[in-house]
């Protein structure tokens, strides 16, 4: 072994200085503390942000309903998203909304609430399905003015189901049908997909292993008219910027 290498191994190692303990900032220094928290919790530094006129909404994991889900679920909480959307409508600095979905569905009522809130905003909204937008994620994705899906993303379209006690009476079926109509009508009203096509996708057999319904791939979602265009982050942002410009110029939303 080279002598310099031996020297390297034989040298005495000075005891490491104890790492400085980060001071916990008092209440007034929230910003600094936020940065520290970011490094500790997420391993990321805070990137200086220029003033942004796009509000970003991410719909991830389960869309949580009126019951708090156990902690193994990643959830999107409607009680936080809905006031944010009201703020978006009111705040003159925000000119558009970009919504990114990677969701496995969840509560029908909460999902429809978010979808209706998005669709009733007067500012331009663009949604992008990355990964997946399943079940109740479908109406949420359709609710934006213009919608994108990535090539590899999927949407599972299948009949809704009841949880908990189900009473075996004909009324149960009527109720389920009514709930299904709420979702189907919303999707048909907010996308180019026809009622018949959507119901056909929903009740198709032989495609899902343990359910009836369809897994719709990105390009098929566009073909069926559920989503407007195949695209990724760049296309979605560009489209939103373009819609914001059109709106500023007095142009009409499509």
């Amino acid at each position: 072994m080279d002598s310099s290498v031996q020297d390297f191994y034989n040298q005495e190692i000075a005891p490491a200085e104890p790492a400085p303990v980060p001071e916990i900032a008092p209440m007034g220094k929230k910003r600094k503390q936020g940065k520290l928290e970011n490094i500790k919790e997420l391993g990321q530094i805070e990137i200086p942000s220029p003033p942004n006129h796009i509000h970003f909404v991410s719909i991830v994991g389960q869309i949580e309903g009126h019951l708090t889900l156990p902690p193994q679920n990643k959830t999107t909480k409607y009680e936080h998203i809905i006031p944010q959307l009201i703020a978006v409508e009111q705040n003159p600095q925000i000119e558009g909304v970009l919504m990114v979905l990677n969701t496995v569905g969840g509560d029908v009522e909460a999902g429809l609430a978010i979808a209706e809130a998005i669709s009733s905003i007067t500012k331009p909204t663009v949604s992008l399905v990355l990964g997946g937008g399943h079940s109740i994620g479908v109406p949420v994705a359709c609710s934006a003015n213009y919608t994108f899906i990535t090539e590899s993303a999927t949407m599972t379209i299948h009949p809704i189901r009841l949880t908990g006690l189900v009473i075996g009476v004909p009324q149960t079926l009527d109720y389920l049908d009514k709930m299904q109509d709420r979702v189907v009508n919303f999707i048909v009203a907010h996308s180019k997909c026809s009622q018949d096509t959507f119901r056909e996708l929903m009740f198709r057999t032989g495609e899902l292993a343990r359910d009836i319904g369809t897994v719709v791939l990105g390009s098929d979602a566009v073909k069926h008219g559920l989503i407007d265009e195949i695209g990724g982050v760049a296309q979605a942002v560009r489209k939103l910027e373009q819609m914001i410009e059109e709106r500023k110029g007095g142009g009409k939303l499509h």
Partner: protein
Amino acid sequence: MIYWTPLDLDAVFEGWDDVQTNLLETEYDGLLLQVEPLEQGKARVVRLISGNPMDYLRPDLAPGSVISY
């Protein structure tokens, strides 16, 4: 309640019974928050209770963020 998801509902609702209910209401920066207390005077935000929609745009008050109180 209608849960509509391709996931197995057993997996979603697993541990339903032992969801902890140790939540506090605290005032932070003049706003009412429902929090889950952590160690050393810190708490994780569960819910913001405010009538001003602009408060919901603050990232430090989003559910899941940690505050000192």
